[in-house]
């Protein structure tokens, strides 16, 4: 099998594994479907935007939780936003942790919040790595003359 086909297969496999492991959900498919010739980098752009925003939010969260007196409302607002954006790109695991995080906020459970924050950071960096790998593979595929099979 030629290189392109091989790469395509690998990409496909990799993508499915991400779905299987819950890193990504169907929303990611939606994004991919939106991508077209007029905007061939759409998914990469959106996900990059997500990364930037998420990092900002995580910083804010860390800061907020380091305060002596925590503003749970504010923390909750940040988490809510992170939940929204992660769900929009299909980062399922991140989204799930956000839900748990919000519950802790409601209960004003500091420990729970800190724990959730840790988890979120973990999940976030995981999905980030995975997606970056995915994009790299796609790029290579394109460079080799193939086309993404993700549509």
């Amino acid at each position: 099998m030629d290189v392109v086909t091989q790469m395509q297969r690998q990409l496909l496999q990799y993508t499915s594994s991400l779905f299987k492991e819950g890193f990504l959900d169907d929303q990611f498919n939606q994004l991919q479907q939106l991508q077209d010739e007029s905007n061939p980098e759409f998914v990469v752009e959106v996900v990059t935007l997500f990364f930037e925003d998420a990092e900002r939010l995580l910083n804010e969260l860390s800061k907020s939780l380091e305060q002596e007196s925590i503003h749970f409302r504010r923390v909750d607002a940040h988490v809510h936003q992170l939940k929204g954006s992660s769900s929009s790109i299909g980062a399922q695991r991140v989204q799930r942790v956000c839900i748990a995080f919000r519950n802790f906020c409601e209960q004003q459970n500091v420990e729970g919040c800190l724990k959730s924050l840790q988890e979120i950071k973990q999940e976030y960096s995981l999905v980030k790595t995975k997606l970056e790998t995915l994009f790299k593979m796609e790029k290579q595929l394109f460079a080799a003359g193939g086309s993404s099979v993700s549509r």
Partner: protein
Amino acid sequence: MNLSHCKGSTMSTPSSSGSHLRSTGDAVSDQFPAGLRVLVVDDDPTCLMILEKMLKACLYEVTKCKRAEVALSLLRENKNGFDIVISDVHMPDMDGFKLLEHIGLEMDLPVIMMSADDGKHVVMKGVTHGACDYLIKPVRIEALKNIWQHVVRKRKTGWRDPEQSGSIDEGDRQQKASDDADYSSSANEGKCSKKRRDEEEDADERDDSSTLKKPRVVWSVELHQQFMAAVNQLGIDKAVPKKILELMNVPGLTRENVASHLQKYRLYLRRLSGVSQQQNNLNNPFMNPDPTFGSTSINGIDLQALSVAGQLPAQSLAKLQAAGLGRSTAKPVMSMPLVEQRNLFSFESPRLRFGEGQMQHLNTNKPMNLLHGIPTNMEPKQLANLHQSAQSLGNLNMRVNASVAQRSPLLMQMGQSQPRGQIVGENGSHVNQLPTSLLQPSVPNRISNGVIRNGIASTSNINPAYNQVPQSSSFMNFPMNQTNEMSARSFPLGSNPGISNITTKGMLQEEVTSGIKGSSGFVPSYDIFNELQPQKSNDWDLRNAGLTYDATQHSNHVQGNIDVSVSPSVLVHPGFSSMQQTGQNRDTTSSMGKAVFSMGEGMDQGNLQSISQPQNPLHIDHSVRVKSERVPDASSQTNFFPEQYGQEDLMSALLKQEGIGLAENEFDFDGYSLDNIPV
């Protein structure tokens, strides 16, 4: 502001495709829902980008916005530029529900809320605030494919705002909005565009709304006058909806309609007395319609008309004022306004009955009802007189009043002013004719002082002016009762400088249409203010300012009120707001007057002066004219107009001073909002 855009595509609005929707009903139906103009508001950049892409995939025309305030100003500037709004619930600068309310009040567009939050209470909140749908994030493209149904539904049912007692005529609003837009744009620029737009829009909207919508109560000038007469007869304290209804004896009018209108009126009055200082002057007299109008009723109409005439009214108002109502203010731009102003004045002849007396301006406007706030006793007869003298004139008054009234709201809505301009546009053309006569620049003493301040006293003077205005007949064609088209617009203008916000809000829309139509001159004022900012508003503002201002004079609550109320939402013309702030907070009438003028001035910056000049729509010499008294503030205003948001700040600042909550203001401009919006 949008003067330049005739069709809804003003500045940041999405491509003018929107206009195509409106301009050709046929075209719309053929392509529909493709080309649906959607405004998306979300502070999350990721979601925003995704939504945009999805909506584009649905072949919609998308405009995205990160901040609610930007969205509001976009909507205001381009009244008819959007068909539907999608907004996130949780946003840092403004609560999504608040935005929802604003939009509902001002523009009456379908709003879809969305959030990652799917809790029942949040969804319920969306429902109670009037959202037509609620989407849970992540939003899928399938969910977006059908959003056009909300647009159609709303058009069919005439957008009856559940919160309001149905007095608001949504359809009217839409129409008004378009009218406003028409006016504003054309008035300033060229009536042609506006006319074109008006025709198209009117046809489109009216057809849709009138045939499909449920009958909405349009508080035409006459109706408002009747209302006012009844209220006065009973005494403002004892005026209860039931009795008012009986006295009015209007078939088909329900107690609820009256109740809502009364509520608006009361708000308007309250505003006048509370705010009196600043905006009152301007707004009150004209705007009176706001509080009471709430429902586009004529009171509002006057204002609305004024507002509609936005451009016109301002001018006309100013003119009227200047002319002491009798004079043919030369508000060139707002031919309508002149007429309206005249109406205002003529009617008002010092009827200021409205409870506050400040509203004297209103009186003059009686026909215009704009001044609802002001118990302009302008009785219908006066209107009649006006009408007679110049059909258009009558309209003017109405309009002026409306515009005045509207102006306040317009001012508030300044953002929206554009649409109003439309009204003016329509009228504008007419107005131009009239204005010259009406708005006599000389007003400063009279009209501005007397009229504005005294609000209505000058109206008497104005009466003569009315006659003079006959020229405006062309524009006066707008039936005073023009159905809310004008009002619709005018309110949005919200920024009626002088017009108490209250009136503008509700009233403008409804009334405006009525008044505006005819008075397009006035309505434009609203728009004018908004739009004129650069220059035009002057006339109008002056007018309004003068009118309202005078009425309340110090208390110009009207104006001040208007401003105040208006400000929250920034609706106030930028200039206006500035006025308000400068003038308002403090001082009372003079500030108001100034503020009012400033608004106008801000708008026109100097246009006021133009009032005297035939048609310098932009010039709102208000400051000059109207006031000799006020002028000081005028300068302050000019700066303000340009920023709508600033206005809000100003308004809030003003309000604070006034003691009025911002919350009120935001809503105030519509007059309706006060009632409906859960501040």
